[in-house]
């Protein structure tokens, strides 16, 4: 083999992410990389780099419409897929209340009492915002007057230095509207902007994303969604 065809074996370690994304590894090596990805953020960003940069190669592949039946198979499959359990049946929910500080628990009760104080009010709206593992991270309620929202952290989230921004995605729409920043450690009351007040309805979605300090610079979520849930009548 000519010198031109050999290379320093020390380089191999740096290329495992690229080889994984490229798709040249065997099944066992792929599992190894995937196990490491969960533990090694540097490797995960290398994989993200190559995924983003090489994705353009798929432009050369002609799109092919899948058969009509494909969607109904997916619908059937997700119909039986486990979803996060209802908050009141969730052990995690009660457990998280047990580990949350007394202040938080008291504040949650205060929020419920506060709603109860308005006589003859329509049924208030509530949303449980769950994380990816199905654990409830926030509980939000809209006051009976419809223009104030109380959001209470249900579980203690990790100590992420980023800001938590709350978004409303009105029913039937795709564009999230910012409702402001929330605190992972304390309940907070937010005024619902008047142009959005009518759109806080059952089936509207609330989501919390991680953003740079001060909130998203673009007016749309830029970081991961750590909790999301739909409104329903309490």
């Amino acid at each position, binding site marked *: *083999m000519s010198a031109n*065809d050999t*290379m320093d074996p020390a*380089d191999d370690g740096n*290329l495992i992410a*690229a*080889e994984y*994304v*490229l*798709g*040249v*590894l*065997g*099944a066992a090596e*792929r599992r190894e990389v995937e196990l490491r990805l969960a533990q090694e953020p540097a490797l995960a960003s290398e994989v*993200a780099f190559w*995924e*983003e940069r*090489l*994705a*353009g*190669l*798929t*432009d*050369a*592949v002609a*799109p*092919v*419409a*899948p*058969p009509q039946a*494909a*969607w109904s*198979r*997916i*619908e059937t*499959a*997700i119909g039986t*897929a486990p*979803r*996060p359990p209802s908050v009141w049946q969730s052990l995690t929910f009660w457990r998280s209340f047990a580990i949350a500080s007394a202040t938080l628990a008291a504040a949650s009760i205060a929020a419920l009492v506060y709603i109860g104080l308005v006589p003859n009010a329509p049924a208030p709206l509530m949303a449980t915002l*769950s*994380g*990816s593992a199905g654990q409830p991270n926030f509980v939000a309620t809209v006051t009976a007057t419809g223009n104030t929202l109380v959001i209470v952290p249900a579980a203690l989230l990790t100590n992420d230095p980023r800001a938590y921004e709350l*978004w409303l*995605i009105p029913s039937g729409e*795709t*564009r999230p509207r910012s409702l402001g920043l929330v605190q992972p450690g304390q309940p907070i009351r937010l005024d619902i902007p008047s142009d959005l007040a009518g759109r806080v309805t059952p089936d509207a*979605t609330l*989501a919390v*994303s991680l953003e740079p300090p001060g909130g998203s610079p673009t007016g*749309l*979520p*830029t*970081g*991961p*969604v750590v909790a*999301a*849930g*739909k409104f329903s009548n309490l």
Partner: protein
Amino acid sequence: MDAEASRSQLAAALARVAAGDRAALRMVYQDTSAKLFGVCLRILNDKSEAEDVLQDVYVTVWRKAASFDPGRASPITWLVAIARNRAIDRLRASAVSRRMEPIEAADAVSDPAPVAAERVELAQQHQRLARCLEELEARHSAALRAAFLDGATYEELAQRMSVPLGTMKSWIRRGLLKLRACLEG
């Protein structure tokens, strides 16, 4: 719609999927299933296997949408990665007919796919990739393309280009190192 808006719309649909919104999953499916099915079909070279994987991909999207981080990846990159990973895993697990046709270096010089005006920003990144691939030796970039699009292992690539395994590993790794330097530069 410009690239930023279409990206935001897909990201927002994924946020709704994370909240358990089936209609949002349907929107994501309508926007992306033809692309992902094409990608799976290219890797698996078998329609029914590709259909199985496509189902698996959207069920995964349904379950994992909350882990999508728009700050780290564009929504389409995230979806393509899920589809490629599932298809490659299926390819490794099954003995379906592997692509074994020879890879000709000349084949690799393909015209970039025509890009719609609204995807200019994405297109710029793709043009950069195309430029960087052109700087590589023709047989190295042909091997890289075949690896990515067909999900071929080193062994399969070596066979298809009629070179020893060690040579193929060198080609791919040298190609990747040069490509990284070019893409980062």
